[in-house]
């Protein structure tokens, strides 16, 4: 592996200008409250309730809730079930032989330990009941139970510019305001696999890896999330001409990010083209934020704007609020090849819960997606 000298001065790692300069105020102002209020005010004029397409639930009144996703911390693990501790109580989820469990790799559910942060995609199924059916229900239809389809434990992801390299250890600037560079250690067994997709593990280039979060905060990378863009992070390709924007659906890749100050179960989208005039940015043409234009022509939106994201691979769609500025969607000009080859752009940077709710598998890193304004 290439190892280059640190770019730090006096122990301080040099930080590049934030890719999302316009995101400076998002975490301070409470984005959840803010976007909900904006949706309400917007509806005062346009009377345009937005439905999620499944439950006809209007998300503006409260943050949208996942129907099939449970996030929390494992409280108990048995061969038959797991108990996920959440802020609103414990959730009992049955485990079946078909349940896929991921903890750095596909493992048996018995590898899970109490205290592991998990995200679970579940399905609800009526249990077969041997006794008399309650309330005149048809025989064989017992109470509903949650059965885990997939469980991801301690999963994490780091995407950004490599700042420093020491052997298998990297320091990565994710470009998000107020966040310290993330420490990534590439697992020894995965080094070759990661290097195939990220051949330039040198400062200045981009990296995007998935792995397991360790107790002291670093990410043990086990798999590449994408292929390395061939350009230096400071010199992304020029955005396409304005004529490339058709006003219709925008195709590209949908990726996911780990929650920073967001709630773990938040359903939302990180968006690459927040309005620089109103979202706290004063970036001009010379500023770094302006230099990092996303490589798809995206309409300017704000926090609280509604977008419809469609998973083309799973044929699932949902209307989601824009909840953050996505640095990775500005930095990475790459494709997703989950089902066919997507155009070169990250059109949506979903929260983990939204990614899983839309049928994505976190270890895949992306799915081919179409984004449409849903206002």
């Amino acid at each position, binding site marked *: 592996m290439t190892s280059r000298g640190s770019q730090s001065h006096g122990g301080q790692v040099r930080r590049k200008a934030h890719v999302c300069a316009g995101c400076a105020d998002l975490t301070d102002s409470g984005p959840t409250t803010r976007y909900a*209020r904006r949706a309400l005010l*917007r509806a*005062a004029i*346009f009377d*345009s309730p937005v439905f999620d397409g499944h439950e006809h639930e209007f998300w503006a009144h409260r943050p949208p809730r996942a129907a099939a996703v449970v996030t929390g911390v494992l409280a108990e693990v048995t061969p038959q079930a797991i108990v996920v501790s959440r802020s609103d109580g414990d959730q009992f989820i049955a485990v079946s032989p078909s349940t896929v469990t991921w903890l750095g790799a596909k493992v048996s559910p018995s590898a899970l330990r109490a205290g592991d942060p998990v995200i679970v995609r579940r399905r609800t199924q009526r249990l077969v009941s041997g006794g008399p059916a309650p309330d005149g229900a048809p025989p064989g239809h017992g109470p509903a139970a949650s059965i885990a389809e997939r469980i991801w434990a301690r999963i994490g992801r780091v995407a950004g510019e490599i700042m420093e390299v020491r052997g298998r250890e990297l320091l990565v600037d994710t470009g998000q305001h107020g966040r310290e560079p993330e420490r990534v250690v590439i697992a020894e067994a995965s080094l070759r696999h990661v290097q195939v997709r990220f051949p330039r593990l040198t400062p200045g280039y981009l990296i995007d890896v998935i792995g397991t979060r360790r107790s002291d905060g670093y990410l043990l990378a086990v798999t590449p999330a994408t292929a390395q863009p061939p350009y230096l992070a400071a010199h992304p390709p020029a955005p396409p001409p304005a004529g490339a924007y058709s006003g*219709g659906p925008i195709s590209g890749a949908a990726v996911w990010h780990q929650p920073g100050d967001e709630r773990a179960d938040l359903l939302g989208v990180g968006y690459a083209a927040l*309005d620089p*005039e109103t979202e706290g940015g004063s970036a001009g043409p010379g500023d770094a934020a302006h230099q990092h234009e996303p490589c798809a022509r995206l309409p300017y939106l704000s926090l609280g704007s509604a977008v419809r994201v469609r998973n083309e691979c799973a044929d699932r769609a949902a209307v989601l609020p824009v909840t953050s500025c996505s640095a990775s969607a500005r930095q990475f000009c790459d494709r997703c090849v989950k089902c066919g080859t997507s155009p070169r752009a990250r059109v949506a940077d979903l929260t983990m819960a939204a990614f899983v709710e839309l049928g994505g598998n976190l270890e895949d890193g992306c799915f081919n997606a*179409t984004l*449409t304004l849903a206002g």
Partner: protein
Amino acid sequence: MVFVGGAGVLAIAREVQIPLLAVLLIGGCAAKARRALGARSIDAGIGPTGMFPFSLQRPAAIVIFVSELALGVGLLVTAGRIGVGLPAVAVRAATFVLFCTAVAALAELRSRRPDVGCGCFGDVSSTPVGWRTMTRAALLGAAALASIGVPPLHMLGSVGRFGEALAVTVAELALLAVLSPEIGELMVRLGRAEPCELRRVPVAKTLDTLWASASWRRYHRYLITTTPTDVWREGCWRFAVFPGILASRRVEVVFAIYMSGRHAPIRAGVIDIDTPPATSPSSRYSSLTVYRKSAILKNKINIASNGPG
């Protein structure tokens, strides 16, 4: 060259309407199909279907598409001797009914969803519905009405008659172009200009537009301050919120400013801060529908008297 009189021109004008209407209807269907294919969803289109409940949007989109396509093809098929008589009259009368329905639907859409376009020609019909779009639909309805009773079309017998037909067609197309916001949208897309969704627009410029508007003059006397408490953007629309007092109640007045064109539409709405959120989204939102009429405003926020005059 043989020139025809006024009656002859009128007859030619009526004849021209049939292929013109057919081309517009089939062209509209093609544009809608292109959008649906791009979105991989039939109900992804904008327009009147947005007024339907979510579960009915897809069937409504299909019905509109099939109706337009059937009438477009029907107009062509019955233009000659094949459908002479009742079939031709039926198709043209149905086209007239379609455009009359469209006028009503557009008026309703403008009232209930002033932020969306008519969707008549897919993606390029994203400009909010205005008087131009409604006038165009009415004009096409009149054209359909005029086509009823036109004898079967035949090849024009002389250069003069061909010239007359061409002149009428060009004149009508020019009129339709004036009434079509899609033309401006197409020009932007074909040219180098940035669509308004992608254009950086300073907040100061948006506020200047707002302060010069009739909506501002109507509501500014109820505002506590002229400094907005929140400003945000969604595509071509920018929103600005101001705190206010209306009939001794604390309110928030929100303006939506369309950031394209010289006479950009501006909408205003009022939310009563002191009213606790309703439990049902539908009831909450049905009480905040339209704010441009003072009587409705007073009614919607439950102010019996001394509201805006």
